[in-house]
């Protein structure tokens, strides 16, 4: 199994989620993060002083998948999260040694609700 982690723009979350559902991904975990990168943060004005906020709000999506879905899932995120402008984010893939569904104790690929044959 693999864990796909994607940092995306917040307003892209809905399209990423929809695209993943369309290819049979049945679960994911999402959190609010702050990104630092090429995309400069915005300027804030507070009582005459201007500040640059280094960190930009982003969304992190984590998806646990079976090994063979890696390419499909990565490409799907790539397409659905891209706006072509700086700050679109990153995807990275890490190996997962085991997965468990807490409710049932199922392990490995069975712990993931991916649809078959996709």
């Amino acid at each position, binding site marked *: 199994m693999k864990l796909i982690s994607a940092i995306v*723009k*917040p*307003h892209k*979350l*809905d399209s990423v989620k929809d695209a993943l559902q369309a290819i049979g991904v049945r679960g994911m975990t999402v959190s609010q993060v702050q990104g630092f990168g090429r995309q400069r943060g915005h300027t804030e004005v507070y009582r005459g002083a201007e500040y640059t906020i280094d960190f*930009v*709000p*982003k*969304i992190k999506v984590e998806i646990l998948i079976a090994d063979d879905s890696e390419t499909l899932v990565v490409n799907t995120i790539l397409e659905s999260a891209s706006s072509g402008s700086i*700050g679109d984010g990153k995807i990275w893939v890490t190996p997962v040694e085991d997965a468990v569904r807490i409710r049932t104790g199922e392990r490995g690929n069975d712990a993931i609700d991916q649809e078959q044959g996709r």
Partner: protein
Amino acid sequence: MTLLTHFNTGDTAWVLASAALVLFMTPGLALFYGGLSRSKNVLGIMMQCMFCIGAVSIIWAVFGFSLAFGKDVGGGIIGNLGLAGMGSNHTLIPGLSHLAVSPLAFGVFQMMFAVITAALIAGGGADRMKFAGFCVLIVVWTVLVYVPIAHWVFSPNGWLAHQGVLDFAGGTVVEINSGFSALGLAIVLGKRHGWPREAMVPHSVPIAVAGAGILWFGWFGFNAGSAGAANGVAVHAFLNTQLAACAGLIGWLIIEKVTTSYATTVGAISGAVAGMVAITPCAGFIGTMPSILIGLLAGLICASAVKLKFKFGYDDSLDVLGVHGVGGLIGTILLGLFASVAVNHGGANGLFYGGGLHLLGVQVLAALVTAVYALVVTAAIAKLLDKTIGLRVSPDDENIGLDSSQHAENAYSIGSSQGHR
């Protein structure tokens, strides 16, 4: 826009402003209670407060005011239905013919009292009451608990009023009543899951401070408006309210500092409320320095009283008993010592002002009667409702929180629709 009647305009201006101030206290209470709640139960308690405004006002207008202030049916127990619908600017309220303002103005001012008393008791059952059950409870409670006690004390024909009880702005009717009603409710409902093991701390103290600020502001209407006129008694009541609040704030902080070595913001606002609770029955009857003393005592004692629940094991979630019940007792009883006709010719002299023990006795009587009646009848209503339509939410719903389970809402949504570059 012509004049219908010729009441004193200054008195009318003050009583109307006061009525608006007292109404404002209930949304203020919603913020105070909501801020002190956990984030999953914020709207639950706010909604209960808002519902009280809606339901109790209508009940009051249709027949509650009449039962409380209408012609006594005998024995000073309850009024009749002669004032149902609240009448007009020309209506005569039995025993209150000398009102400086329109009886309708008096009636709407009193309406706001019924509203906030009802809302206060929600705090005793916070985090675990079904909304539908609460709605029924509050309607029944208004009729069976609030209205009778208001009649006994506030109507000149009530049986306690006949004994000579003094209650300037509701030490019995509002404070002791709400405190002991909340206790009854808390006992019947039982403890929240996890209480007192789990820390159930305020989700937003700033919101609670906002609420307390509104309560403080509104209390000037509550107390000084109870003079019924913009006169010297109102001025005394106003000043005393401020001083008792301040002394209560200091008193509570002293206890906190001594026992935990920290003075907290929640302590400051709780102490101010405790001081105002205690001065409520006294505001227009006592002098300036006794007000500071009573406020200080209220702060000291209530800061200690809120810990009783851990000892006795009743889960009075938002400390209605500890603050309003105990504070109300303090003020109502101490008035028997400090009342002075030098401040208010319409009042009486307490023990320390040459009035002997009579007033003190009556005050103790009224305090006890109110406490017992409120506790017993509220507990009975709650028990009955719990056995029939159900008053406590399921463990699952309690877990999820009232906002989601009872109202299909979240207090805060910062979800997926928050778009940023």
